[in-house]
């Protein structure tokens, strides 16, 4: 990290949530509530084919059934008042001014919003080497570098567009990793998802730039339910980044997304998230409920899926990016930093399901709790009966700042094959007075010292992130620690 980055960290550490602004834009919003007419309306707005509408309706009926039986999951180590699913707005989209022929016709208010978030969508100032799909409330508003990617046969577009232009791909893979009936929140998402990103990298193609989706919740009272589907065909490689922010509001907002990844023979997908949804204020008022299902299938032999996440935002995080290691010699990785400050709660971890032979998984989880933050690591490693010579290594470290926060670890191991090697290590430590004093005795301020120690603690994970994201993640850790010391 350079000096200027370090100065930036110090500056950011003294700031409040900087993405809390609201964009004043005319939106098309439907009344709150959830029933068949809402699902039909969303589907109709997107001119979806009948099979997709039917899929949504199956999900809706399953969800309403679960709602009636009150089977919302309660096993996570988090607490929140009961959510009234009939009071949520399930669709909100910025009103288009006219039909868009190019990005430059995107509403200037929207472009300004992303500019303010540090994501430039305009032709001249795009992030070099990163193609961005921008999702605003319920819809994708822009995708950059599309033409360049098309030359290589790479499809990168909004989910809605993919449904029309590549229906065969969507139909083949949608719900193939996370079925609509998978869990309570995935089921809700399947019924009402409005947009998201889609990417397909064809056989043998190495995607030359990072693909990225930037999610932004703007409207009040709405939920965001996006769906991301990435498919890497045989021998393909793609690195994908996901970022998210939301305005500062007093009420809680629900974000229930689904991400599905499919890697065929020898394919590799690297999926990185820097999650910075509004976390609520210091007293725990407001903030996003981030209830997300992310799963990747290593379907082909020697395929690899790697999840890296830095979770600093949200009032509550409920998220377990997982790998199904189906193909022989496939590899799953999960690198996570989760930070909870003030009243934030996080229950996060992963599942590594070893099915094929010689499959290998690595889990590195770093949890940081400050203020009254509560943090749980929950991870399942399952070695199936046919997974000969499967190997797993798990390491879960927790760092506590202060006396009122908590760290909890819930590892689950199911080993049904005697040839498996499974290792689990866990540590819990406090930022010691000794470490802080040592830094301060060398002239380093207490705030910089805490940032330095925390970043050092997270290093194993941060170094897995693409460069641009690593810097942003370090900055975020600094911001999220604001008020954690002194």
């Amino acid at each position: 990290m350079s000096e200027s980055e370090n100065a930036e960290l110090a500056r950011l550490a003294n700031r409040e949530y900087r993405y809390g602004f609201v964009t004043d834009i005319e939106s098309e919003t439907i009344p709150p509530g959830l029933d068949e007419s809402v699902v039909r309306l969303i589907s109709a707005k997107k001119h979806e084919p009948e099979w997709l509408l039917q899929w949504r309706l199956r999900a809706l009926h399953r969800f309403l059934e679960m709602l009636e039986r009150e089977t919302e999951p309660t096993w996570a180590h988090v607490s929140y008042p009961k959510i009234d699913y009939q009071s949520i707005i399930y669709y909100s989209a910025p009103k288009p001014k006219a039909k868009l022929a190019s990005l430059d016709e995107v509403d200037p208010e929207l472009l300004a919003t992303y500019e303010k978030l540090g994501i430039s969508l305009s032709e001249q100032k795009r992030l070099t080497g990163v193609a961005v799909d921008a999702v605003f409330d319920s819809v994708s508003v822009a995708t950059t570098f599309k033409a360049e990617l098309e030359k290589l046969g790479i499809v990168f577009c909004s989910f809605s567009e993919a449904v029309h232009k590549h229906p065969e791909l969507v139909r083949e893979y949608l719900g193939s990793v996370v079925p609509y009936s998978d869990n309570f929140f995935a089921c809700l998402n399947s019924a009402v998802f409005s947009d998201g990103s889609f990417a397909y990298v064809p056989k043998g193609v190495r995607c030359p730039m990072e693909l990225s989706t930037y999610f932004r919740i703007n409207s009040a009272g709405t939920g965001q339910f996006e769906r991301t589907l990435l498919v890497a065909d045989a021998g393909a490689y793609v690195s994908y980044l996901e970022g998210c922010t939301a305005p500062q509001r007093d009420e809680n907002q629900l974000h229930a997304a689904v991400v599905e990844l499919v890697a065929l023979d020898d394919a590799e997908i690297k999926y990185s998230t820097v999650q910075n949804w509004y976390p609520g204020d210091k007293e725990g008022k407001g903030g996003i409920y981030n209830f997300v299902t992310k799963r990747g299938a290593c379907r082909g032999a020697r395929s690899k899926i790697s999840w890296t996440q830095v979770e600093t935002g949200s009032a509550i995080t409920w998220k377990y990016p997982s790998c199904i290691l189906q193909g022989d010699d496939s590899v799953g990785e999960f690198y996570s930093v989760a930070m909870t400050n003030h009243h934030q709660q996080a229950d996060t971890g992963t599942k590594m399901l070893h099915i094929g032979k010689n499959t290998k998984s690595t889990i590195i989880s770093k949890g940081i709790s400050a203020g009254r933050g509560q943090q749980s690591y929950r991870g399942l490693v399952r070695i199936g009966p046919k997974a000969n010579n499967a190997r797993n290594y798990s390491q879960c470290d927790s760092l506590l700042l202060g006396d009122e926060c908590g760290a909890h670890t819930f590892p689950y191991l199911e080993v049904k094959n005697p040839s498996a090697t499974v290792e689990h290590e866990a540590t819990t430590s406090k930022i010691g007075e000794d470490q802080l004093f040592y830094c301060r005795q060398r002239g380093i301020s207490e705030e910089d010292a805490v940032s330095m120690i925390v970043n050092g603690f997270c290093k194993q994970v941060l170094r897995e992130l693409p460069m641009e994201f690593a810097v942003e993640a370090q900055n975020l850790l600094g911001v999220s620690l604001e008020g954690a010391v002194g």
Partner: protein
Amino acid sequence: MPQGGHGAPMLELVDVYATAGGAEILKGVDLAIRPGEVHAIMGPNGSGKSTLANVLAGRPSVEVTRGAVRFDGRDLLALPAEERARQGIFLAFQYPVEIPGVANMYFLKAALNAVRNHRGEPELDAIDFLSLAREKMKLVEMDEKLMQRSVNEGFSGGEKKRNEILQMAILEPRLAVLDETDSGLDIDALRIVAGGVNALRHPARAMLVITHYQRLLDYIVPDVVHVLAGGRIVRSGGKELALELEEKGYGWVEGASA
């Protein structure tokens, strides 16, 4: 008289009482150190040597309950630890602390630039810093590989102590406090560490060398030796006092303090 011994004291302690962990450890320490001087503090275990070092460096868990400490004539106790460091007080730790995941190089550069900022000097970039660090590493015969490793993590006892002296050489403090830098060192490491310290002796720099054994003072020859016992300085003298102490044992001075 010791060299440079005629100016105003750089550091002055007047009747200092201090508590650590609820117990009163220092019970009226008086001490004055002038620029260019090297003072040694000797004393048995539990006499308050490390507490004295922590009082000077500003460790939060040590509380001064009475008396005054002045650095350049100004109240030192009013300043937080980082401010004291920036003004030129350096403590070589008896037990250097490990900071996992933070590269030694990065840590040192951050420390140097914090001090340089305070002095109104421009920050050093990575290239200038590296050439400075390389030059100083020779002083303590330190392997360059240790710069890429996490701060003190997995360092041997000798490597940790050399790292402390390297930091001192890079930060160029005005007052260096060495807290039992000789503990846990074999004779070769001791010679290297002491050589590093001697190279930093300077008319504008004062040093306070805290040690349990006379052995270190064969290598770092002090101008003044003080004996700390029962939380007070019970005897002060020239370098020959250390030899006398070695010969007669601490019982000799502890008797004097009673």
